[in-house]
């Protein structure tokens, strides 16, 4: 039986993670993400899971990776300054192919910035924050209900592809209360990591299976002995300087997302078929955008709405034909222009793009986006 809750976004996200099977949380308090840690502190011991408040965010993600290599579905959550601190170990999780979920509840930056105000300034950091090439999966929920849902999806993707998955929430969403329909556990599709089927003697830890190009993962303590390192390594997990081995490993890390891109990408649209102008927005801003688009329709304007649910990989192929047909896009963001570059890349010059930036700690007013729609459409 499904049930109804009235939750904050952060609380919803934490319960979504638990429903996905998360049983390990390592973190460090930071506004506006702390409620996630607080829920986990309460719930983990109660289900024989693990919660630990570490000495800093670097330790938070390190312990989380430790939990993951020991067989637990593991998560950490933070905000801007902590997200910066986590970047080096996030890279280790990409390189060593460790499934974890990392939540960034975005607040204003740079630096300590605006701890209690919304922003969308970390979306490029999600893609490029850790050094070196890697393929990113990042969700941007836009309702409290969706916080629950993307937490499950994020774990499923992390487990399936053996890599970190990011959830880019924001301060408004994290603290806003809304109705959540909590689905019946039996109805959830839950993915667990692929385990080795061979004997410990035959186990080659980073040899991908031919059918999906993904290696199964053993856990420390389950009888297999293997080596984990952040150094570029061969199929034995051992550091290599061999150009062929380096090329193979590096390409496989990118291929996880490239090869399965269509199964990962998610987006939502409304009124795009006949639209003359489409507003492309994500996270909390998408709510304002949708309201403006509906107002515009009421006024007889052919406005449409496109919301990437996955920021990375970006739904570029899906946006392009719609953008070409409409000819005009509006991209409102709470930063000086980050995803707008991705929109530009996606549409190949086939639509005019009007960028809207707001960096004052607040959300756009629906009227501001509506005015822009009128201006662009008119």
């Amino acid at each position: 039986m499904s049930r109804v809750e009235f939750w904050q976004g952060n609380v919803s996200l934490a319960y979504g993670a638990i429903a996905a099977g998360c049983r390990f949380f390592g973190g460090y308090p930071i506004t506006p993400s702390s409620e996630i840690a607080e829920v986990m502190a309460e719930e983990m011991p109660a289900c024989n899971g693990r919660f630990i408040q570490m000495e800093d965010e670097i330790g938070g993600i390190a312990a989380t990776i430790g939990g993951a290599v020991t067989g637990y579905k593991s998560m950490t959550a933070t905000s801007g300054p902590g997200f910066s601190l986590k970047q080096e170990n996030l890279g280790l999780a990409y390189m060593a192919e460790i499934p974890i979920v990392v939540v960034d509840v975005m607040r204003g930056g740079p630096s300590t910035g605006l701890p209690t105000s919304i922003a969308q300034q970390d979306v490029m950091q999600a893609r490029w924050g850790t050094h070196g090439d890697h393929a990113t999966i990042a969700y941007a929920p836009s309702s409290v209900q969706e916080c629950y849902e993307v937490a499950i999806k994020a774990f499923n993707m992390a487990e399936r592809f053996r890599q970190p998955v990011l959830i880019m929430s924001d301060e408004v969403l994290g603290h806003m209360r809304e109705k959540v329909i909590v689905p019946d556990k039996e109805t959830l599709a839950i993915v667990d990591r692929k385990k080795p089927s061979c004997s410990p003697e035959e186990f080659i830890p980073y040899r991908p299976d031919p059918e999906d190009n993904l290696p199964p993962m053993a856990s420390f303590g389950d009888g297999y002995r293997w080596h984990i390192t952040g150094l570029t390594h061969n199929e034995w997990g051992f550091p290599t300087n061999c150009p062929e081995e380096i090329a193979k490993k590096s390409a496989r890390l990118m291929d996880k997302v490239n090869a399965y891109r269509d199964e990962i990408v998610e987006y939502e649209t409304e009124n795009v078929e006949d639209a003359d102008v489409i507003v492309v927005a994500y996270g909390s801003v998408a709510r304002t955008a949708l309201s403006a688009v509906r107002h515009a329709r009421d006024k007889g304007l052919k406005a449409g709405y496109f919301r990437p649910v996955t920021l990375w990989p970006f739904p570029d192929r899906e946006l392009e034909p719609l953008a070409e047909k409409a000819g005009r896009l509006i991209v409102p963001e709470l930063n000086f222009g980050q995803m707008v570059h991705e929109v530009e890349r996606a549409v190949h010059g086939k639509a005019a793009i009007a960028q809207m930036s707001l960096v004052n700690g607040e959300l756009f007013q629906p009227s501001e986006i509506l005015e822009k729609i009128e201006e662009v459409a008119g």
Partner: protein
Amino acid sequence: MPRPEVLDWLRKRFFPHMWCPGCGHGIIMHAILRALVDSGKKREETVIASGIGCSSRMPGYIDSCTIHTTHGRSLAFATGIKLANPELTIVDVMGDGDCTAIGGNHFIHACRRNIGITAVVMNNNIYGMTGGQASPTTPPGARATTAPYGAIDPPFDVCKLAQGAGATYVARATIAQPVLCEQYIKNGIANKGFSVIEIISSCHTQFGRKNNRRTPVDNLNYFKNNSVPLSRAQSMSPVDLEGKIVTGEFVKREAPEYTELYRSLVERVGGGK
């Protein structure tokens, strides 16, 4: 020649190792393996964790569950592993830079939690891997590539740091005392809580070449001539102790171990059901 049951713990596939011939770290690896074997540990139930440095390359050579993490952070990873599965035996090997510079925060908090991990700090008083820069344990006056006129920074005493932060077993030996190293590591593994064994190691390549200890033997002789057992040190004056390496067991005490506290918490809130 190592005993056959010790040789079983080597991941022969990954040899040759990257250490310079004569590097002190190999003596420590051998002592760790003897201690593990003599403590009756199984390879698939033992985790060797490390950060980054010459010392931290050790896990690659050991055929157990091994994790070579990021510079300074290994204890935070190991904390997660131990909390996830308290049945595992965890030895965390670190360099002096790894442990006391970039990893200082994780080190003191692992001591404070008294989590059941054995930390082996391989102190060669220098950043070996990156070319001989000064570390927080480089003695004042010693030369390093980033202290060309001699170091002026006051150094850390790893054992005092560990004791002050709450570790329940703390000992120091030098690589010139391999049997003592093995014994202390064994005692550390037997201790339920957080154990720190500082082993004074040598880097003739980086430290030695700038400080008149050019060969491995120079270093071993230096350690032999300058070590003082704790029993003797206790009756020596601070002046006489200047520049001496005090070896021995500094802390051996009982305190609740972290994952046991966590398990009681789980039972208290009914999560064990």
